[in-house]
């Protein structure tokens, strides 16, 4: 948890643009909310590693949203079940099901479909919200927070330095 906080703190106080951080957290949200061993998460991982987003923020987002994912799993399962058994969509699912790729993607799994749909819908609004919050933080709060003794201790720690170097290298 300390590592997650450190990652987030470093991200917020780094030179990275707010978009890099907010997109990273939003990608972490998708992988966190949906079942881990799903084909779409390979795509998310690919994007997180190849697109210039803040990796620390991605892993922090992944961790936080994994906990939320566990809490909301029954809700996602119900939503997915409702959609997969909706008579109006039966034709669509049947067509998609004929594709082995779609089967491998587990879109016919209730929790996978429900959670992926929710995280995709929430993705862009979350990016916008996080952008706004990060800008507000950097303008009004960051200077104040940096003066805290605990923060200075944290910045002097090996963990902070290690992550800073890692981020710098990337």
């Amino acid at each position: 948890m300390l590592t997650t906080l450190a990652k987030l703190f470093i991200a917020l106080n780094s030179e990275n643009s707010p978009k890099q951080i907010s997109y990273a957290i939003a990608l972490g949200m998708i992988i966190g909310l949906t079942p881990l061993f799903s084909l779409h998460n390979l795509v998310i991982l690919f994007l997180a590693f190849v697109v210039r987003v803040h990796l620390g923020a991605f892993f922090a987002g992944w961790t936080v949203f994994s906990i939320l994912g566990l809490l909301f799993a029954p809700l996602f399962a119900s939503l997915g079940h409702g959609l997969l058994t909706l008579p109006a969509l039966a034709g669509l699912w049947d067509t998609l099901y004929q594709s082995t790729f779609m089967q491998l993607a587990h879109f016919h799994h209730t929790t996978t479909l429900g959670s992926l749909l929710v995280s995709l819908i929430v993705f862009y609004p979350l990016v916008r919200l996080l952008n706004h919050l990060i800008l507000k933080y950097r303008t009004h709060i960051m200077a104040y927070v940096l003066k805290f003794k605990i923060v200075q201790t944290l910045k002097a720690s090996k963990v902070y330095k290690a992550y800073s170097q890692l981020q710098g290298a990337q």
Partner: protein
Amino acid sequence: MKKYFRWQGLLGLIAFLAFIAAIIYIFAGWIIKTGIEQGGGWYLGAEVNVEAVNVNWSPFTLDIVEFQATDPKAPEFNAMQFKQAKAEVDLWQYLLGKVIVDDLTLAELEFGGKRASVGEVYRVPEGKNTSQTEQAGEAKEMALPDVKQLLKDADLITVSKAEQLQTVYQAEKEQLAQIKDNLPDEEKLDFYKQKVKEIQDTKVKTAEDLVKLKARLDELKAEIKADKKQISQAKDSLQSSKDNLKQAVTELKQAPDQDWQAVKTKYQLDTFEVEDVAHIVFGEKGREYYTQGMEIYQMLKPFLSTDSESATEEQAIVDVGQFIHFTEDAPQPDWLIKQGMVSVKTPQGLFSLDLSEINMQHWKRNKASLIEVSSNQLKGNGQISGKIDFFKAKDGNFLSEGKWLLEQLQIGAAQLDEETIQSAAKSALSLAAAKLFADGEFKLNNFDLDAVIKLDLLDPTFVTNASKGWQKKVVQALNDAAKIPAEIDILGSVMSPDWKIHSQIDEIIKGSVTQQLDAKLTEFKTDLQSQLNQKVASSLKLSDQQAGELANLDAWLNDADGTLNNLLDTQLKSVVDQEKEKAKEKVKDKLKNLFGG
């Protein structure tokens, strides 16, 4: 492009995926073990233990060692346990969301085995689990009632009818006494006779004398007629009393038989048993196995009901998500065990189950599931062979058939010592040992079960903790039988079927113990009826006395009535006629003298 992409990140991705793959490869066994323990514990509500899970990647095989699932109702026992389960799973189908087990080996599957240590219970199941053994073991106690106590019973018809006779007698007696007081007595009759004689002797000389005589005569007649009327009324009352008493006596005479019928019904003297004994002998174990089977079914039910409708009802499945399948070119069930071998450890010995096409969506492959049961390692060199197949159609229609044959299964210990007998005698009737031969078949159409089991118990040894003599006789009679055949029919809903047990135990008991019991019943009946008859007799004796009195009164009334009739119709009537004749003669004589003489 560089502004948006970092291609060196690909290396990071590969390293990350390799790291995840390595973790899975190394810790797969531990992850699955933890998953089974946590998931199983969450589902069952009690501790689940797995010693180890070994994973073989090619072909993908799971090897689960020493599985134990605590029974939440009795945490010192396991609901289910097995020594080893090896499943070869089709990995590709698994990735597509289906569990297809090509080959399954399950060793020493056991239900209700004792745990080394008491398992932790997370959720106490609702409702107390009443042991079927306890229910079946509650043998009906039959005790003959005490005759003296019985006679005190106010409900006895004989007692009430005897009392009724006395009441009727008293009432009639009082009524007749009143009537008797108003009747003419002997003196009155003599008085009438005297008066009649006086009238007869009266000399009539003039017409005036005749008129006077006529007046006296009419007065006497009126008086006699009044008494005659009293006598007539008394006769009617007497007849009514006679009828009332006759009715009371008849009812009293019939009462003892009615009482016997009532006593027989109340104390179930006609219905003792045999059926109860048969249920104890054959029903107890049968119900126990059946209940155990249903408990296992309930435990596995959510996994067996894989169609979407029933799955919707299973909230537990919905909570963790499920695959929903659509039209396929080569349909496969959601889960399937293509073939398997399961060894089941029971107190009767080791059974072997050969599985084929086990699933609950048979319409997809159009093949029925088949389970072949066999064993030649049952207690006492017993053997079993059987075959069960089942098929579930797409519309939910479920059909199943099965046949089995069991030979020479040793029930209880082959050699019984005193200690074993004592420990086995926990109820009024327990089967301590026997050799069992049985065969059976069943048909299941959806939830309608039709099963027939024919069995023979050879050289049975029954034990009892009963102290009553007749119960010991029952046990002795059963033990004396070399063979006890029976047939068990199980019909109706599979959730609560109707058990019918037909057994020659009926004949055995009727042939020996019931005779003894009948003798006791006859003795009881004789004793009871003799006591009742005494009551009747004493009441009837009273009735006889009264009958004598009534007869005397009846005779007296008839005599008195006859006497009065005689006086009225013959003697008094003749007096007037005679006097009239005399007067006529006198008038004739006078006229002769006057005109011709």
